[in-house]
């Protein structure tokens, strides 16, 4: 049963067609003999049906098309914009350095926090809560899309 617990991630990925190669073969073989995991797969499929929007319509009958005049409106707004730069802007080295430093910090935390009594390793697919929180934080930093904020980039570059 403990072995089955470790397969929970694989079951989800299998359901979403994201398990490949030998990992998939191993799981398929395991499913043949494990009723609990087959049940878990059924449960994930049930959840999928619960969340399903198969009856989705682009817009309910009788309601206005949300995309009516969309292209024209976008083009009007684009006409009001200055000509975009056709060549790529140089990317600042420091911006990459921020990303590398954040990744290095995360790695350091992950390695140093991996000396618990259980000895489990995140690479096994079992990430602890704190580590995941850190991962989320790192992603938030990444999501800030610093290069979009040109003024901030220039300001920080002067520091």
């Amino acid at each position, binding site marked *: 049963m403990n072995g089955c617990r470790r397969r*929970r*991630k694989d079951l*989800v*990925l299998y*359901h*979403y*067609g*994201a398990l490949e190669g030998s990992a998939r073969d191993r799981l398929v073989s395991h499913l043949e003999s494990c009723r609990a995991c087959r049940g878990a797969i059924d*449960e*994930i499929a*049930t*959840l*999928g*049906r*619960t*969340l*399903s*929007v*198969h*009856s*989705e*319509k*682009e*817009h*309910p009958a009788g*309601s206005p098309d*949300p*995309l009516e005049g*969309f*292209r024209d*409106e*976008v*083009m009007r*707004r*684009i*006409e009001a*914009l200055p*000509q*975009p*730069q*056709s*060549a*790529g*802007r140089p990317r600042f080295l420091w911006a990459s350095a921020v990303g590398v430093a954040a990744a290095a910090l995360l790695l350091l935390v992950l390695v140093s926090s991996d000396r618990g009594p259980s000895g489990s390793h995140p690479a096994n*697919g079992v*990430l602890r809560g704190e580590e*995941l929180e850190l*991962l*989320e934080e790192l*992603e938030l930093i*990444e*999501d800030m*899309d610093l*290069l*979009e904020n040109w003024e901030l980039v220039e300001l920080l570059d002067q520091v």
Partner: protein
Amino acid sequence: MARVCAGDRSAFGILVERYQKKVYRLARDLSANPEDARDLAQEAFLKAFRNIGRFRKQAGFGTWLFRITVNVCMDYWRKQKTHGFSSAGGGKAAEGPGGIVARLPDTTPASNPHAQAEASQLRHAVAGALAELSPTQRSIFILRHYHEMGIREIASVLGRAEGTIKVHLFRAVASLRKKLAPYRC
């Protein structure tokens, strides 16, 4: 594409025509608010046009555009959160006309008020469960489940490693399973 990269506005219009439906759908599902989705989709196209010089052709224009759309929607969530809408991307917005809740299958007969109430409860539970996912998990789950993107494509759109996408997808499903356990059909 060469004309678009050179700043040709009319050529960009062809791309708007081609991608507007997909970008709108993505903005609608990510924001869970059809009323704001049109503005968000427009913002994505404007951002794409302004930054066309940064587009690297090997990524594919669609992938790049979807990435911009996801970023626009993530900014939207943050603004909603800043303005006190703690369940941005879910809750009331999701219940609105055309939101995820409204688009969930309603197969209950009108003559059965009890079943209708149960279905309504389920739709709210789904919206709430989706809203409680982290922005990254929600984006990944919506891209995979509702837009049927593959892991590799999601990784390209979000600029993440495939392994990261898989971990987040697993965690999203685990969270949804837990939260929706009492509503299993």
